[in-house]
Each structure stands twice: as C-alpha cells, then as structure tokens.
C-alpha cells in the first residue's frame, strides 16, 4: 500500500466525540458499537440543524478522528470524534452542543481503502507501509475521511474511504 503525501494543512472540525473503548458494548461491523452510536447521534443532530447542514454542504465530507492519550496503550481507551470541516470565520456561530477540534498543521500520508480492506487490520498494513517508506507518524491521532465514495457499512464491498496519518518528517 503506497500512500500519497499531502501538503501541510491545518484542519478545523466541528462535531461530537466519545471517549472509552468503542467496542465495549458491541464489536461487530455494524452501527451498534459506540462509534456507530456516535455517528447516529451526529447525523440526527445534523438532520435537525439547517445551519450545520449548510456548513456540511460548503465543505463536503465527514471526518472520524481517533485521538490517543496515555490510557490508549495501557487500557485501550481513546477518543473518537466525528464531524465536518469548518472555516475559522464561522467559529462563533457553532452551536454550543458541538465540540471543536483543531488538527494542527501537518503533512499527511493518505491511504485509500476499498471494499473488504476497510474491515481488515489496515492499521497494521499502514504501519508496515510507513516503515518501508521511511515515514515517521505522529502517534497522537489519525483520521478517516468519508465522502460520496463511501456507500455505508452495509455496502462495504463498493465503498472507498481515505485514512490520513499525520507524519512528522521525511527521512
């Protein structure tokens, strides 16, 4: 798997998050685990909020960010954030029940996953690819980018998504 390397970019996101083990209630590939619940909560909010619907239309695509801390390696707990990209100019208009994430300026190694690869241990494959490419990842977060190419978990065979791994530098 060979990544595309992006130009440095800063990304500002608005959305909702969850902290813990996302599979403690259900570990299947469906919407019943905590990540699925989070997406459902976020989509319900979006459905009832025309202002955020407009924002989503301006900068299409959804983000699922995984953020790691000291409890991630030890206990398997981490934060999952889902949301949309926003411009800095609309920050003051973001509803109070949303969280903001500022992903600092970084280059990204972008891996495109397709079909059943989405269900595989792609993190492992990506890690090997980064090592082979001499790329050093920033271990504190990564994110998945979903757009019209992703057809839903029930249609995984025909779905495509991008995984963004922040990288520190090229050796």
């Amino acid at each position, binding site marked *: 798997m060979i990544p595309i390397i992006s130009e440095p970019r800063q990304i500002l996101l608005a959305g909702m998050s969850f902290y813990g*083990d*996302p*599979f*403690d209630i*259900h*570990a*299947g590939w469906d919407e019943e685990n905590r990540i699925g619940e989070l997406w459902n909560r976020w989509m319900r909010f979006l459905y009832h909020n025309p202002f955020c619907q407009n924002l989503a239309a301006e900068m299409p695509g959804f983000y699922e960010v*995984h953020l790691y801390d000291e409890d*991630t*390696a*030890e*206990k*398997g*707990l981490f934060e999952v954030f889902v949301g949309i990209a926003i411009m800095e100019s609309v920050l003051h208009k973001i509803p109070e029940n949303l969280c903001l994430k500022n992903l600092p300026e970084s280059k990204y190694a972008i891996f495109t996953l397709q079909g059943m690869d989405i269900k595989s*241990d*792609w*993190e*492992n494959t990506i*890690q090997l690819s980064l090592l082979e490419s001499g790329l050093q990842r920033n271990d504190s977060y990564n994110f998945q980018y979903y757009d019209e190419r992703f057809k839903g978990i029930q249609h995984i065979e025909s779905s495509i998504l991008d995984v963004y791994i922040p990288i520190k530098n090229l050796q």
Partner: protein
Amino acid sequence: MNEPLESIYDAIEFFEDHLYENVTVAQTADFIGYSLFHFIRMFNRIVHHTPYDYLIRRRLSESARILTNSHRRITDIAQDFCFQNQESYSRAFKRMFDMQPSQWREEAPSEEFVLMPKITLADLAFRNSDFFRSPELFIWSETRYQGLMTKIIEDKNGLQEWENSLAADLKNCLSDVSASPQVTITFSVNSDWRNRYEFIGIEKHKNQRQTLNLVERIVPAGNYAGIFYPVDFFKEARTYLFFTWFPAVCCRATCHEFFLLSFSVLSSQGRQLFVPVVISEKSNIRLKDSRAAI
C-alpha cells in the same frame, strides 16, 4: 478453529502470564501481531470483555485467592498485581466483589462463581458458536415439579452420566410413558455449589396426584437470568453468565429459598440454564415473562 480465535486466545495467555507484571493492552496487541485498534475490536467481539477489563478482573480474582490463603499484607498484594497503590486496588476490588479486601480476608467467602477463572478455548468456542444467544432476564412464576434427586459427588466427567441415569429412572417411574424429563434443578444444603443435589423432573400440574416414589420440588417465583446452551457447553454457558454477562448488565446471582442454585429447562428451543438473580438499580435491562423463555 479459526485464526482470530486462536490469536485472541494467545492474547489471553499473554495476559495470564503477566498478571504479576506490568503489561499494556498495546503490548498484548503487538504480541499477537495486531494493531491496537483491530485488537480491541477483535478481543471484544470474541471474548465479550474489553481487554483491560479482562486483565483487571483476572488480577483481582487471583489477588482474592491470595487474600484468603495467605497472611501477605494487602498493600503488598496490591503491588504484586500492579495496582498503583492500596487505594486504587481497594476501589477496584470493591467494584468487583462489593466488599473491601480486608472484609474479604475476614469472611473468606466461597470462591466458586465469584472469582473469575481464566477464559479457556472452549469458552471462546461457545461464545463464538452459531448457537450462542445473549442471555435474557425473566420473571418466573412459581412452578412445581416431581422427579428424582441425587447428591452430586463429582463435577468433572461424570455429571452427564448422572443426568442420563436419573432421567432413565424417572421415565420408568412415570405412569405417562410419553412424558420426558423437562427440568434439571440444582439445590444445595448451604448455598455452597460444592455441596449440591441434582433433581430431574417434569412439571406437576395443579391438582395432579403425587406419584409415591417421586419427590416434589418447587422453582420459586422470582427473577432469573436464562441462557441457551448445547449439552456439551453447560460449564461454558455458566461461566459466561456469571463472569461476563452479570457484570455487564449489573446483576448478580443469588440463592432462593430452599437454596435453589440454578435450573435447566429442556424445551422445543433447546436447553436453557436459569439462575436466580438480584438486579441492581443501575441495570437497564428489560425483564421478560418466563412464558417467553419456554
């Protein structure tokens, strides 16, 4: 045996080898060659515990054994099992056993069905089989049975033979030759699973005459957790109920009057084990009518 099941079992063994040593979930994922994210997902799916929850429950269970069987200081036991200090150990201990380590040492309660055993390959096979169905909670109405009863001496290889032999004798005693034993009830004389009696019987309907050479036993009304199991997986079903499902839904096994410990019902849907339970206020699981169970 499929590959993820074996890999996750390797992770369980890795945890078991490190109950007394600091080990992280990430190191365990690395040991079996999985990424952390994939490991957490697969472990939850196959074991039905989070990896960290499994490790902590096993450490607490082994530490409880040492509390009972040694004079080692509690603070040292906490350190042996990698807890930061005695306070965090006591907090975790109370969450799992509903008592402080010092109280546990004083009372030395029965360890069976309290201390979580190591999950075995057979446990994983049961949890991931096609016949596995998540347990449910039922409100049971009082039911009377008549049948035969025996003391269980050995619980290892002979249990099924006892059951078959009792069931055959019961069939000989019944006037209705088409009737088949429907229920197996486990009683004890002192709420201790190690000292128990097995009863095999059929439902006794209202106004039905008592057959002279049979005894009558009652399953009292109350709340029961029920789980389906194939006959070869009784032990694994019981382990699942007590150590995985009860903590997840905030309820615990209890002992009804006459020290009824559990009973199994054979219905058209298969064999189902029922255990009397106390449901915590924190539980949000719904109770079903027992008629839905059978």
